């Protein structure tokens, strides 16, 4: 039993270290002087980290961060806001046509997002919104999965009695939503918020086709262009890659429990 335990722990540790090795390599390579990178295997950190850091900070990477951050915040805000109020309406009201409208939303969940991409980009040009961040944020306004998720949650977690008594006390319907319902929806709001934030942060194709000013680049665009910016400085590019990806991964590991519950919730009960 004891030997079996150690064997399990060791093999699992080995597998996960092997799995994490690409990340380790990426971190370590960013600490090398570019010329030294190919002289021997970069297995241990070298001493050129600060120099590379100076190079990379002189470029746009902090700006990319800010762009990605504020776009993701606004995207999350509109996604969650619209999904919450729509989910409340579908989860807690009876109205004519509700069944069909909700069925329609479920149907649209099946349609892949890229289907309308070409016309969406054209439409944004007609509105003179290309080369702004608006196309990236507006895309959050109609998230069918978000509405589905909120409806399910509102139906089961917002008690009808509480809503009733607030109504009797003379609370208006919008006031009811903001003051009474939103607090009950908070767990779902944080889960959907994390999923939306991650989705916006990782989005590459849409900014690629709507934005061509380096000033407006979001993180994935910035990362993809690092190699052109630092053509001769390979290590600096790799450090940029590390800085562009790692902080968010670490940040999300803390919120992963909520995230995982949201992701697996549809398929796994409990």
């Amino acid at each position, binding site marked *: 039993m004891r030997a079996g335990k150690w064997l399990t722990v060791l093999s699992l540790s080995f597998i996960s270290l092997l799995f994490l090795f690409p990340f380790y390599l990426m971190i370590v390579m960013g600490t090398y002087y570019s010329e030294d990178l190919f002289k021997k295997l970069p297995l241990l950190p070298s001493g050129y980290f600060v120099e590379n850091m100076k190079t990379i900070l002189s470029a746009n990477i902090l700006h990319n961060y800010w762009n990605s951050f504020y776009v993701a915040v606004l995207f999350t805000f509109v996604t969650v806001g619209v999904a919450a109020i729509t989910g409340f309406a579908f989860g807690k009201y009876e109205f004519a046509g509700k069944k069909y409208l909700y069925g329609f939303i479920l149907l649209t969940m099946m349609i892949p997002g890229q*289907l309308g991409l070409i016309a969406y980009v054209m439409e944004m040009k007609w509105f003179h919104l290309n080369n702004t961040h608006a196309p990236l944020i507006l895309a959050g306004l109609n998230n069918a999965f978000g509405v589905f998720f909120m409806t399910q949650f509102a139906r089961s977690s917002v008690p009808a009695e509480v809503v009733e008594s607030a109504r009797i006390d003379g609370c208006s319907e919008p006031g009811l939503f903001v003051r009474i319902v939103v607090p009950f929806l908070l767990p779902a709001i944080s889960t959907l918020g994390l999923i939306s934030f991650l989705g916006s942060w990782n989005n590459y194709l849409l900014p690629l086709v709507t934005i061509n000013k380096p000033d407006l680049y979001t993180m994935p665009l910035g990362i993809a262009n690092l190699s052109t910016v630092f053509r001769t400085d390979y290590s600096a590019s790799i450090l940029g890659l590390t800085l562009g990806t790692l902080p968010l991964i670490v940040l999300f590991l803390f919120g992963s429990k909520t995230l995982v519950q949201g992701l697996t919730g549809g398929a796994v009960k409990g």
Partner: protein
Amino acid sequence: MSKTSALKGKNKWPYLFITPYFLSYGVLSLFPILFTLYISLTDWDLYGNRHFIGLDNFKQLFLHDSFFWKSMLNVFLFLAGYLPALVLFGMLIASLIESRLIRRKTIFRLSFFSAYMTTPVAVGIIFSLLFDWQGGFINNLLTEMGWIDSKINWLGSPDSARWIVILMIFWKNLGYFVMFYTAGMAGIEASIYEAAVIDGASSKDVFFRITMPLLKPINMFLIITSIISGLQLVEEPMLLFSGWASGSSMVGGPEGSAFTPIWYMFDASFNGSAFKYGKGAAIAYSTFLFIALFSVFGMKWMNRRGEEQ
């Protein structure tokens, strides 16, 4: 009863609440989807052509475009490569994590999940760093060890390029599968396992006769959603061959061996000198057709399997 009566006279509110969603859906999703369908029936491009040409784009794609079929074949080859591996290794690793021998389960779960949360762009770049011909880590390691005499051009030949894409998607999605399986296994009652052990079942029996059948609904979900998202694969192979590490980009990989339908759509409509929106739109709709087909068959298959039990 009291619920409905209390809501009478306030009927305008639910409609007002759902208006923002449906309004934005109409303008920002439904219109683009329908308009893309129209574009797919024209020769629309950047240079002002806008003639209605009926189904010509689709005829061209289905009958004469070997790249379209190749990109379709590719995504299915990739799926055939990584999906069974994800199911198998996902379950094995999850059952190791969930075994009573492991105490710090969260650390292991999260270490696998980290790749899933990594920006797809970075995933492609990381693998191009690993498998680059001249400076890549794998080649340097193999030559240092003396296992190979001359460096292998991993990303330069169609077969190895496909395997690297498969390995890359496997690496990215393994944590996602592990998460679902651990969640599913944690939901299986301990008493079922205890009863099996008392009846003298070996751990192999327990895995194949208890764990796997109970995970079937999760498997169905994972397989169908993986096929749907697998057909839409684009960013990771795109960045793998963007020349980030090597300096020379290669659209579609060597001989188009890593081309995917959505990549092709992007390349036809937004890249290079083409800007053929009509062709791009036709590729988008053709891909969607395949996705819809597989979703319907997948659901049918899922329902039938469900009824059999």
